[in-house]
Every structure is written in structure tokens, then in C-alpha cells.
């Protein structure tokens, strides 16, 4: 089973991908899609990705919702900032070094996606030994506040899912 289906979630995702691409749920599409999804899973297996799979589907959904809200909020913030002009941003952007407790690569990847997808924050660097992440923030009013946001809003919840 694991040989044939090493990454069931990925395989499922690929099948969905196939069906979405073809915009069809006909038996033919499902059959072909399943074959391709299996092959895709095998291809991923060749690349030996790190182990680990997400748990707690509900938490994921809640997280996604929060992310969406956060994205909309910061879109607004950044857009305002840009439109107000360069004078308004004097000295307000900067780097924050945030220690992370999370070690799961998927968790870190998800965190990176969230932070980067949110306008106003960019993941810059990560040190695996110290577990620190360097974050660049466009509207850096308070370093502590940012550290708290990252750790409480995202890291904790991601750890629940991935660790």
C-alpha cells in the first residue's frame, strides 16, 4: 500500500487537480486521473520529501479562513501605505528576528507561505540550528507585536496541524 500510495493526500490532490483541469468527472477522466495521480505520487516518492502529514482538517479550514481575513486586512493596509506616498513610510520598515519552536518542514513551509502571501511581511532567512527566522516587515511599528502575531496566530496553530 505504501509502495503504491506513498502519499495518499498528494495523490488525492493530484486527482482533484486532474479533474479540475479537465473540468470533468466522467469515469474516463477519473480513471485516467487516478492513474496519473498514482504516477505523480511515485514521482514525488522518488524525490524523497520529508515525512509528515497534516492532521486536524477542521483546524486547517479555520486557519485558512483566518489567513484569508488577514490577507484582506493587510492588502488594505499595504495599499493605503503605498497610495499615501513615500513620506508616510519613513523608517517604518525593518527586519525582525523571530525564534521558532516549530521544526516540521511542512509547517515551516506553510508558515512561509502564509507570511509571504500576506502583504507586508516577507520571510527572509531561516537558521535551522538556532531555529530563528528573519522576517522583513513593511510596517514595523513594534517588533514585539510582530513576534507575538507570528508565534500566536500562525506558528502555534501550524504546530498543532503538523507536529
Amino acid at each position, binding site marked *: 500500500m505504501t509502495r503504491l500510495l506513498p502519499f495518499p493526500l498528494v495523490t488525492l490532490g493530484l486527482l482533484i487537480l486532474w479533474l479540475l483541469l479537465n473540468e470533468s468527472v466522467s469515469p474516463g477522466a477519473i480513471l485516467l486521473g487516478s492513474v496519473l495521480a498514482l504516477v505523480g505520487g511515485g514521482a514525488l516518492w522518488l524525490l524523497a520529501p520529508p515525512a509528515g502529514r497534516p492532521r486536524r482538517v477542521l483546524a486547517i479550514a479555520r486557519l485558512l479562513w483566518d489567513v484569508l481575513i488577514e*490577507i484582506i486586512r493587510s492588502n488594505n493596509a*499595504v495599499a493605503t501605505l503605498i497610495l499615501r506616498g513615500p513620506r508616510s513610510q519613513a523608517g517604518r520598515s525593518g*527586519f525582525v528576528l523571530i525564534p521558532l519552536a516549530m521544526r516540521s518542514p511542512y509547517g515551516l513551509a506553510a508558515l512561509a507561505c502564509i507570511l509571504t502571501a500576506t502583504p507586508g511581511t*516577507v520571510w527572509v532567512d531561516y537558521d535551522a540550528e538556532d531555529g530563528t527566522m528573519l522576517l522583513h516587515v513593511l510596517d514595523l511599528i513594534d517588533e514585539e507585536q510582530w513576534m507575538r502575531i507570528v508565534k500566536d496566530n500562525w506558528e502555534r496553530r501550524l504546530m498543532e496541524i503538523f507536529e
Partner: protein
Amino acid sequence: MTHAVELPLWAAIVVACLLLLGAFLTLVGSIGLLRLRDFYARVHAPTLATTLGIGCVLLASMLFFTVLQTRPVLHEVLITAFMVLTTPVTLMLLTRASLYRDRREGSPDVPPIPARPLPKDGAER
């Protein structure tokens, strides 16, 4: 736009708003690329386009084709997924590269390589 004649008015209005919003956000992002002062600030700007900018347009597209073809058109979701998965790769590598280049040039605006205590036992590794 003859094909759009059959679109109900409400859908047309929603689609139009979404389109305009998305395009506007994208433009703002690109303006940010121009107006923001340094690279680290500018790197945030395009995110407007990759998130809500494209998101609104995708929603518009989904709505438009779903209503027009009277069947759910969902494949736009894929673009969202791809955007979310791929943007971090680019931006992280790019920002890190910028950080490296600034550090190499001794720019005062970037944090130095964090100090680290000497390893206790070098032979261990």
C-alpha cells in the same frame, strides 16, 4: 462582448466590480514597486497582485463562466493554489539574495550575520 449579453445584470455588476477591484489592487502593487524606497520595502508590493489582485479576478472569472455556462467552473482555484505555493519560493530566494548582496557591500540597513557562540566541540560534527 456579444457573449456577455446573456449574463444577468447582477452577475455583470459583481463581475465588473471584482475585475475593477482586482485590477486596481494589482496596479497599486505595481505602483508600490515604483514608489517604495528600497528593495526590502518594494518586495512587499507585488503581493497585492498575487493575493487579492489575482484573487478578485479569479472570482470574477469563476462567476462569469459559471453563470454563462450554467455549470460550476472551478479550475480558477488552481491558479490560486499555484500562486500561494510558488510566490514564497521566488520572494524568499530573492530577498535572501538581496540580503547577501547588501551584507557583502556592508550596507548598514540590513542586520548583520547573527553572532553565534563557538561550538563546544568541533570534532563532534
